[in-house]
């Protein structure tokens, strides 16, 4: 289908001067999408929808919130008690953050499983990691705003980390704080930045979609679309499927909002911040727990650490580097994974390690939720080592030594022949150009 002739003269008038409608038609109605996408491909659009929900609820909350240490906590309670539907908007925003991370984590693991990061989608993947980093920064800033005990102490712990940077660490922390501890100047600037970053996020998401549309979506079989027989137009097929997926998502999300709104939260954050009293257990929000575990895996006294690194840097700095490194390593994944086969469906060894990685991430999260004592310490260290081993050792080796299963000749072939499934009819073809 080529450029459509719009019937409506108003639309034609606008489109001639600013081709929004042609653009939408091309990118939505015509846009060829692999016909075999599974429901794991719904999570990208879900993430976009959650972002919209977060911005809408956030802007509205900002109409009632006061970013001053003397009033912040109370202003949030005013929203909960006095503002019309304030409790609903606040709980939507609070649980929306958790929903955002759940959706994005699933989206990322989908990418890991199906090789979505491989050529020609390396940049798409990297932009995605940038999105993840921006989300994490936004969430961190946002959690400080209610000015509860966890808000304050979480901010104190994480901003203090920057003091580990050699030479310029302390001045940087003072600069971040705007003072000598987390206090009103910190809160005020965190509010400003928390309002800003989501719009930066929108920009990055647009770039992410531009990169996506260059070469189109990957698919469960990991083979390029060869022609129109492998694709279907995005609209109405995937618009409708996305809408259904959105309905299911909202059912789960709103269940939490209405019936378990504090499930993902910490009771301590319903206590107003007290700089003179540290809570017995400082825990970040659940989506930061694995990174928190990696951060705390480096302890000055533990031989494993001190043998290798103590001469070079403090345990604190090593922990910080490792924590950021755990995300940075994702940037390099397209080059660490040399396998020409995209989808784990045809990579029997990689598939096992994928599940091990997933389990490892849960273990890291569990370690992060607990105090850094006793068996949690060595379990955290093993899990951290395994995490990096997966990306830096296992995946590169697999790329060289793994014998993949034979690929089908095309996407359409197993489907159109009525057979579904991944066995090929022809001899194993060397991988699609990956």
């Amino acid at each position, binding site marked *: 289908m080529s450029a459509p002739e719009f019937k409506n003269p108003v639309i034609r008038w606008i489109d001639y001067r600013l081709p929004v409608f042609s653009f939408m038609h091309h990118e939505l109605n015509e846009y060829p999408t692999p016909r075999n996408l599974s429901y794991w491909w719904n999570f990208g659009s879900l993430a976009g929808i959650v972002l919209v929900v977060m911005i809408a609820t956030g802007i509205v909350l900002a109409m009632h919130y006061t970013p001053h240490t003397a009033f912040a906590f109370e202003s949030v309670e005013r929203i909960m008690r006095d503002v019309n539907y304030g409790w609903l908007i606040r709980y939507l925003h609070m649980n929306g953050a958790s929903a955002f991370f759940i959706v994005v984590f699933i989206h990322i693991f989908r990418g890991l499983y199906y090789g979505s990061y491989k050529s020609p989608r390396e940049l798409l993947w990297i932009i995605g990691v940038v999105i993840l980093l921006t989300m994490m920064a936004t969430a961190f800033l946002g959690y400080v705003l209610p000015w509860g005990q966890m808000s304050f102490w979480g901010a104190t712990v994480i901003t203090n980390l920057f003091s580990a940077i050699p030479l310029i660490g302390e001045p940087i922390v003072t600069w971040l704080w705007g003072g000598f501890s987390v206090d009103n100047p910190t809160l005020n600037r965190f509010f400003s930045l928390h309002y800003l970053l989501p719009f930066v996020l929108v920009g990055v998401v647009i770039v992410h979609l531009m990169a996506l549309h260059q070469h189109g979506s990957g698919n469960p079989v990991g083979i390029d679309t060869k022609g129109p027989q492998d694709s*279907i137009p995005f609209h109405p*097929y995937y618009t409708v*499927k996305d*809408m259904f997926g959105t*309905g299911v998502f909202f059912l789960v999300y*709103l269940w939490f909002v*209405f019936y378990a709104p504090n499930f993902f939260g910490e009771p301590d954050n319903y206590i107003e911040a007290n700089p003179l009293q540290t809570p017995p257990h400082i825990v970040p929000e659940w989506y930061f727990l694995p990174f928190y575990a990696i951060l705390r895996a480096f302890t000055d006294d533990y031989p494993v650490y001190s043998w290798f690194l103590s001469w070079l840097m403090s345990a604190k700095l090593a922990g910080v580097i490792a924590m950021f490194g755990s995300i940075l390593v994702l940037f390099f994944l397209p080059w660490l994974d040399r396998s020409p086969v995209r989808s784990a469906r045809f990579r029997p060894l990689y598939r096992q390690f994928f599940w091990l990685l*997933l389990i490892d991430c849960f273990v890291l999260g569990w370690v992060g939720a607990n105090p850094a004592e006793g068996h949690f310490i060595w379990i955290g260290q093993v899990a951290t080592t395994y995490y990096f081993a997966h990306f830096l050792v296992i995946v590169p080796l697999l790329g060289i030594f793994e014998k993949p299963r034979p690929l089908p000749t095309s996407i359409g072939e197993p489907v159109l022949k009525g057979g579904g499934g991944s066995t090929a009819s022809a001899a194993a073809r060397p991988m699609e150009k990956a």
Partner: protein
Amino acid sequence: MMRNAILAACVAALTAVASTASFAAEAVKIPNQEWTFDGLFGTFDRGALQRGFQVYNNVCAACHSLRLVAYRNLQEIGFSEDQVKEIAAAKETTDGPNDAGEMFQRPARPSDKFVSPFPNDNAARAANNGAFPPDLSLMVKARKGGVDYLHALMTGYKEPPPGVTVPEGMSYNAYFPGHAIAMPPPLSEGGVEYADKTKATVDQMSRDVSTFLAWAAEPEMEARKRLGVKVLLFLLILTGMLYAVKRKVWKDVKH
């Protein structure tokens, strides 16, 4: 793939449960209670709320503030406008400055928040041997175990087990983390004369004030659950329809 995904979800759930369980290892298991406001359709028992308010007003308010609740909110638990005015006017609050530049005391109005027993935190500590009686407006949400924990705490005062000593000025409590709590047992048999003539046992008063505090922390709960039923039912139907639409649109596509 699907099976593995379900497995992954189970692992996730397990770790979630495990992380809560490991904390519980240090605290005592809190007995599970049944409350009228539990569940999808739970509501606050108005009688319990009003009795609970009586307990708060007569017992707890001597030391604990409730500064996020306004007197006018009491109309939501069944008090009339006149009763609310009377309850408010029984307390004096600071206002001003007047034309002479002085702060003065005046009876509280329904639009005022609950008057705190102490003018500030330092005064509260000074009056309580350095211990600070926390504000109760959010206590049910601010403690792990919520309303079950509060009820257990208030009924959990007992003699320390053999070999355990409690520092001077503290009391032994079976459910307080560390077991030594600065607050002396707040409730005693018959301590409050209920307006509705219910027998004021410790257990009764504890349940009533716990219910009241659950409302104070989450006054929106009934509206939230009511709206939740409507929204989720609507969504269930809409999602079902969207599924039907999806199947219909995809009917002739081989995929």
